[in-house]
């Protein structure tokens, strides 16, 4: 297949996530650039499952051991012993309330690094139970690192309060970049509703950043009500 940078943003986003999973530099996956995003996502999900399956027994033991420890000790061990990747793997094996208690004691930078390795399918209850302020801070940290692709993976798992706080923590450009690579497009209308007072600014940002076409393509997935309302705001702002 041709080795090139993929034109399709969805494919580009999938290659970024696959590169993190495999621990390789993204250009090393250029030979996958012509594959459609859904096929890459299926491969990534299956590869994630395979990696979890091989370590399952030892991870479960580690989770049982963590349950014996006081939360502050478990948090310290997460940082100095397991590190972000294994802590992410363990998250889904812990009681959600315990996982949240440990998360509260971890630095945001560590949680952001862990989120790169966390498969939200395996820890949906933990992601949903995280305090909104932690979710917002992790989201902002990921955006500051340019990891909108990672932040976008979690949107489908966030309860309304966490999503609202995360959206408020992102500036307009970061919010657009995250929305463009959203895995769960079913939350697009929620995002649009949460940003009602920012529509004019978001539209202006999309025009300024040269991503107006992508914003229009994204808008096609919105409800009729939101599409019409956004079109009115865009028209009021003048031609693109």
């Amino acid at each position, binding site marked *: *297949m041709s080795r090139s940078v993929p034109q399709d943003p969805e494919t580009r986003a999938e290659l970024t996530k696959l590169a993190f*999973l*495999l*621990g*390789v530099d993204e250009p*090393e996956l250029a*030979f*996958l650039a*012509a*594959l*459609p995003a*859904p*096929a*890459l996502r*299926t*491969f990534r999900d*299956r*590869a994630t*499952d*395979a*990696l979890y*399956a*091989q*370590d399952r027994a*030892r*991870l479960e*033991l*580690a989770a*049982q*051991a963590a349950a*014996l*420890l*006081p939360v502050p*000790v478990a948090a*310290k*061990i997460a940082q*100095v*012993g*397991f*590190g972000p*990747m*294994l802590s992410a793997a363990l998250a889904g094996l812990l009681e959600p309330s315990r996982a949240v208690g440990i998360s509260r004691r971890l630095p945001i930078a560590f949680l952001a690094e862990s989120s790169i390795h966390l498969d939200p399918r395996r820890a949906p209850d933990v992601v949903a139970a995280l305090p909104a302020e932690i979710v917002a801070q992790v989201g902002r940290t990921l955006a500051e690192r340019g990891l909108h692709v990672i932040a976008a993976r979690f949107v489908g798992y966030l309860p309304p309060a966490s999503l609202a706080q995360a959206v408020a923590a992102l500036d307009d450009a970061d919010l657009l970049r995250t929305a463009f690579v959203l895995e769960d497009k079913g939350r697009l209308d929620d995002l649009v509703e949460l940003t009602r007072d920012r529509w004019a600014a978001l539209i202006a940002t999309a025009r300024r950043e040269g991503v107006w076409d992508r914003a229009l393509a994204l808008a096609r997935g919105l409800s009729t009500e939101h599409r019409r309302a956004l079109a009115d705001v865009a028209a009021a702002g003048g031609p693109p």
Partner: protein
Amino acid sequence: MSDTAAALARTLGTPLPKDFAALTDEELATLDRMLRTAAQRRAQELTSGIEQSLQHIPAVVRPAVRKMFGL
């Protein structure tokens, strides 16, 4: 399915997505090597993570945890 595709499917533990039929044997082998390397790295990190963690576990529960891991 080529031998290389079958090898990657074995590593994956499930069939390959059908669009992956467009990849050459060399590309499939590269992907298989990447996935195996990631699996090895992860297993090594888990081993060293468990060993390092034991040093930070309170003495009172250390024997129980060691026993859990068969150490």
